[in-house]
């Protein structure tokens, strides 16, 4: 057996660590996926991401064409360029997926998200929260003597920034819808 020149017990030769060597710089992409609105379609898309180890940073879904039974899934994902290409190709393989658009590379696009923040506090903090909300054009949709719920729409980073400001002022609960996005122009 010595002719084989494999160290006995050299278990590092795993059959399964053969990842390809493409660029490893991660990018963030927003994908718009037009799907048939059939039961299970969301499970197919999510199962693809979990089964193949892709990231989902945000996902939204709703029917957009009632007569055509089409829903639009907006997915924000991150990965190396090769992984992003794979994600698009794999999505395209799903039989009930009609179209996959990578809004990040297909020209300019607009991204919006809606969020609600519950901020509890009294005194100066409460006043400051209201003042900042005004600057961010957040609306008060509920208030008690000790709390507000703000509603804010905007690009995800604007919402992140608002969340950062609210945290020291008594932020207690957050609900975000995830990103909806459309390409600009025609």
């Amino acid at each position, binding site marked *: *057996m010595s*002719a*084989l020149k*494999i160290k006995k*017990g050299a278990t590092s*030769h795993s059959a399964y660590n053969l990842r*390809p060597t493409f660029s490893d710089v991660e990018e963030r992409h927003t994908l718009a996926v037009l799907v048939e609105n059939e039961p*299970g379609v969301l499970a197919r898309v999510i199962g693809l991401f979990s089964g193949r180890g892709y990231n989902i940073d945000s996902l939204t879904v709703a029917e957009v064409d009632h007569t055509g039974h089409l829903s639009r899934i907006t997915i924000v994902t991150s990965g190396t360029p090769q992984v992003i290409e794979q994600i698009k190709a794999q999505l395209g393989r799903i*039989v009930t997926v009609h179209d996959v658009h990578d809004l990040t590379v297909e020209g300019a696009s607009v991204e919006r998200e809606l969020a609600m923040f519950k901020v509890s506090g009294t005194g100066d903090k409460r006043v400051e929260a209201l003042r900042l909300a005004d600057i961010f054009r957040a609306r008060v949709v509920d208030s008690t003597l000790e709390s507000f719920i703000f509603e804010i729409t905007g690009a995800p980073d604007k919402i992140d920034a608002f969340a950062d400001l609210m945290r020291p002022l008594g932020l207690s609960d957050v609900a975000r819808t995830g990103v909806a996005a459309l390409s600009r122009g025609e």
Partner: protein
Amino acid sequence: MIVQALIDQGVDTVFGYPGGAVLPIYDEVFQQNAIRHILVRHEQGAVHAAEGYARSTGKPGVVIVTSGPGATNAVTGLTDALMDSIPIIVLTGQVPTFMIGSDAFQEADTVGITRPCTKHNWLVKETDALSGVLHEAFHVATQGRPGPVLVDIPKDVQFATGTYMPPKPSVSHYQPKVKGDMEEITELVAAMEKAKKPVFYTGGGVINSGPAASQLLRELVKATGFPITSTLMGLGSYPASGQNWLGMLGMHGLYQANMAMHDCDLLINIGARFDDRITGRIDAFSPKSTKAHIDIDPSSINKVIKTDIPIVGDVGHVLEDILKVWKSRGRKTNSEAVAKWWQQIEEWKAIDCLKFTQTGKVIKPQHALVRLEELTRKHDRYICTEVGQHQMWAAQYLGFEDPNRWMTSGGLGTMGYGFPASIGVQMAHPDALVINVAGEASWLMNMQEMGTAVQYRLPVKQFILNNERLGMVRQWQELLHGERYSQSWSEALPDFVKLAEAFGAKGIICSDPDDLDDAIMEMITHDGPVIFDCLVEKHENCFPMIPSGKAHNEMLLGEAQTQGVIDSKGSVLV
């Protein structure tokens, strides 16, 4: 209605197993003669049999099983068919719609369980939708990259009457692209004209594309004079006796094939997917070549290996266009350089990496296959295999002259595949010689199908290379785990001859090399199923071998041959 849809789709054979949730379908099956139903002994067997049927005919295989355990037993077969792109339609019974979600008896979330192991699946909740879904299921299973689909049909939907719609030219939005991009094709032809060291690397896609694709491939190889190798799944698309054949490539591929892949300057992948059993270490894979990749599935391209010339399309269509363009540009190749390339390849071939010596009184598994090849070559022959060393030896030592004659579990590596697959093949080709080259351990995994073989008088030959070991596991333990043979013995094996007789079949045992030919002849000539217990050398290793994580040129040639090779080839070998 279900049986009508199957008939209208041209189905003549289904494999299945009844149960409460499919009784209405079985009642329909009972009252007709157009479709033959084969009662298997386990639902996994039904799916593998359907795979064997599909792979040996090019037609989709059809399976009917009941809800719950019937469906879960089908999961391995579905996954196997998905990995190897085999068109299968599985119909499962389901509890009635009004009981779904109540943990009813034999309820399972079948579409949920099988979503990741089917190309697509459906739960049909209205009888009126049933025929449309069934026709769509055939369309999806067979179009584009083929694969398994599943239709889950609740019992009340089976009982109710609805309107039947006959199949019509597809209205499906699912219409995969079959024609390749002409610009890319022209770029490939230009690369072919210049290439000094080209190689065709072909795969199961050629076979899935149909017999015409194999024919076009042969024409292209002959016209260009380029060498050709194939994956395990692609064997037979180019004949093993063909002049330009290098043999199989990959982990247990032939020396000349792997060396050609490593040193080539133009690699033309036709319907293969750069599986890790093929590429070995990715960053050392074919480092000097321009890579073209023809595949009907866009997700295969750039998944593992960066491709320079990607061509999305059906192999047959693309090959036709390649030939057309190449001819119209004057049938050019760099013939002088290619001749030199062949000289190099001949040197590699001269190493004769499959050489072995049969000495003594113990049968070498390779010898058993050489004899099997010799004695069955001229027959109308179909070969199935199980999974393990015997599978790799079968791929190495048997010659495949035509497509659709080689049924093996490639992507999933499913022990227990071969025997039921051989039943499916024999159903499709009643007069052919169907042999399953098996390991004793794999064979036991679906041995219950002996009942099926005997019931339907299917003369399948179970050629078991019995090394009393989980041989492939043992080999890895020897090479990579310090010879610690953990759980890789086949203990308490049955007496295979008695086992065959217990089922009413014939059993043959052979342990002496001198008796082998006679015993094989006895197997071939017996008109009925045979279990052939071929007792072989217990510690034989399968070579050549690219240890995982190694490059093609770091191949191990085996105990006996390593010394001579190191002398002539110097440093290329580990």
